[in-house]
């Protein structure tokens, strides 16, 4: 049965996933035009994970993100103009051009930060959860990280502490199969990463990360448990990045046909095919988002760079 709630959610999911898709396409364009300094790690193909997961949170909750963080930030409601300006290194960016793609932070949206160190954000997310418990707030932290971060030492240290102390955190492993060029199946014996939850005595499961409703549902359950003081959950979301590790990586290490196979599981097309939304509704959403994105791009492109004096501020705060 199609309830109003389901329809409302579908509209929200569609809007957010399409917003991420379009944003990332434009980041790629800026890169190709030589207007984006450095690199960016695109979230194309993984939109359902961030979208479904963040929809299960309250405004006061926190998320910890990764080097592939644009999707998480957009799903959390970060300002597209300030994000794009940051990616182009402009003064109007979230970090005045001092962070760039991999380090966008927006604490006003509960975003603890994207993070350039694989796994580096996991203990920080656990610390936010510790802080919630200590300060007796009812906030929950979602810790996003990739399959490869689960092989970093801090993954183990962090999940262990969160489990030992029933901290209100949900670990969302986005398994997109590759750590740069290395297939996760070549560097682990047990490929189902959620099974690691067993070692920590916490619930763990693997879900279809391209099914936005499934992500929303499962993260929602985990968030409820965490909020009730019942400790962390580990959710592995199976998904795929359509592009290489970063813009400019042709992804030659991938198997023939693999990209096409995953593109056939496009989370946005999949939501359209569920026919919860009418074609005129989806096209209206797309038109509105296209406009937002165009506006964010124009804003970022036209914004000035900061003066050199900006390089010397914010090393310390008062």
């Amino acid at each position, binding site marked *: 049965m199609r309830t109003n709630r389901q329809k409302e959610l579908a509209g929200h999911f569609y809007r957010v996933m399409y917003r991420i898709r379009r944003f990332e396409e434009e980041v790629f364009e800026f890169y190709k035009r030589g207007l984006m300094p450095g690199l960016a790690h695109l979230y194309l193909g993984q939109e359902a994970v961030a979208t479904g997961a963040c929809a299960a949170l309250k405004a006061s909750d*926190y998320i*910890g993100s990764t080097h592939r963080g644009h999707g998480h930030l957009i799903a959390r409601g970060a300002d597209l103009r300030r994000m794009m300006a940051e990616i182009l290194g402009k003064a109007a*960016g*979230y*970090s*005045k*051009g*001092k*962070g760039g793609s991999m*380090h966008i*932070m*927006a*604490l*006003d949206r509960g975003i*603890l*930060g994207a*993070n*350039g*160190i694989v796994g*580096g954000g*996991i*203990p*920080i*997310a*656990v*610390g*936010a*959860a*510790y*802080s*919630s*418990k*200590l*300060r007796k707030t009812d906030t929950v*932290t979602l810790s996003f990280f990739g399959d490869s971060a689960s092989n970093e*030492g*801090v993954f183990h*240290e*962090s999940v*262990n*502490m969160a489990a*030992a102390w029933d901290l209100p955190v949900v670990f969302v492993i986005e398994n997109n199969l590759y750590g740069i060029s290395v297939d996760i199946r070549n560097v682990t014996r047990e490929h189902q990463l959620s099974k690691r939850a067993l070692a920590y005595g916490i619930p763990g499961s693997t879900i279809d990360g391209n099914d936005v409703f499934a992500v929303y549902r499962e993260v929602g359950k985990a968030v409820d448990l965490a909020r009730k003081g019942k400790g962390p959950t580990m959710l592995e979301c199976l998904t795929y990045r359509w592009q290489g590790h970063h813009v400019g990586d042709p992804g030659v290490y991938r198997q023939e046909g693999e990209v096409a196979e995953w593109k056939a599981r496009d989370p946005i097309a999949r939501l359209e095919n569920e026919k919860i939304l009418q074609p005129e509704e989806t096209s209206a959403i797309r038109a509105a988002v296209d406009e937002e994105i165009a506006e964010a791009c124009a804003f970022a492109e036209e914004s000035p760079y900061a003066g050199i004096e900006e390089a010397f*501020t*914010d*090393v*310390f*705060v*008062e």
Partner: protein
Amino acid sequence: MRELMYREAVQEALDEEMARDENVFVIGEDVGVIGGNFKCTTGLLEKYGDLRCKDSPISEAGIVGLGVGAAITGCRPVVELMFADFLMVAMDQICNQAAKITYMSGGQVKVPLVIRMPLGGGRSSAAQHSQSLHAWVAHCPGLKVVLPATAGEAKGLLKTAIRDNNPVIFFEHKMLYTVKFGDVPDKDEDFRIPFGKARQVTEGSDVTVVATSIMAVKAEKAAATLAKEGISVETIDPRTIVPLDTEAIIRSVKKTGRLLIVDEGHASFGISGEIALRILPEIFYDLEAPIERLGTADTPLPFSPALEFPLIPDEKSIAAKIREMARPGGKTA
């Protein structure tokens, strides 16, 4: 003034700040039930409960990272690392995360985090439990670096560190923990020592000695010995190396014309070279002799006291070096 052991002063600072602000908490290996490996957190578990005085697993990177996350979301964590040597286990969280978040967020996010740890040799603990690694973190912009030399300093500087909105690396000296000092003011919740302000330990006119941490204590004793020989030594304890009170050092060297820097870190690529070069343009024409330094020899610290002690500057080697400088040719009167 009261007499307290250095470790008691650390404990008192933690206790006062925890009582004052419920967002202050302590986490580290063995800080709870046994009150810390060096007994700096005794009684805090009983008084403030498990969440605010947390025995952690042996996960240095994890607990520092936890501290970072708690700091950016409203707490003022004090993370204890049992030995400064374990700093390297947590280096990513200290240098890539804590030190850079404020900057990389364009000033949106503050990181009021203190990481305490004991440095130094002298306990036959060998090369993985004896290092003085303050230069490692002082090299990384975004961290404040504190080296208290007395109980009073430990208390006043730790209270300042906890109220600071930046990450502070707080190096205690393990050979000072049970030493008593009479420089702790009567209980006063607001007693604090500002960062970036050196202490003049002894006043003198022949040689300036800048000495950090326990070296300030050793240099003070050397100065007393030399006073009897008619050599007047001005000893300066910088107390913090980031920020560094260069003014106090410059002022003193302009008076004495001679500068010796004593620091327990290895001399090579350490803070003595940094201090010397930083102030050199200001004092070049006031110098009557080359700047000298004493530090730990450039070897890993050996286990046996027979091998370890001679490698670390002590009262005698400091006095000998000052004599050499005060009386060119090294002749004593």
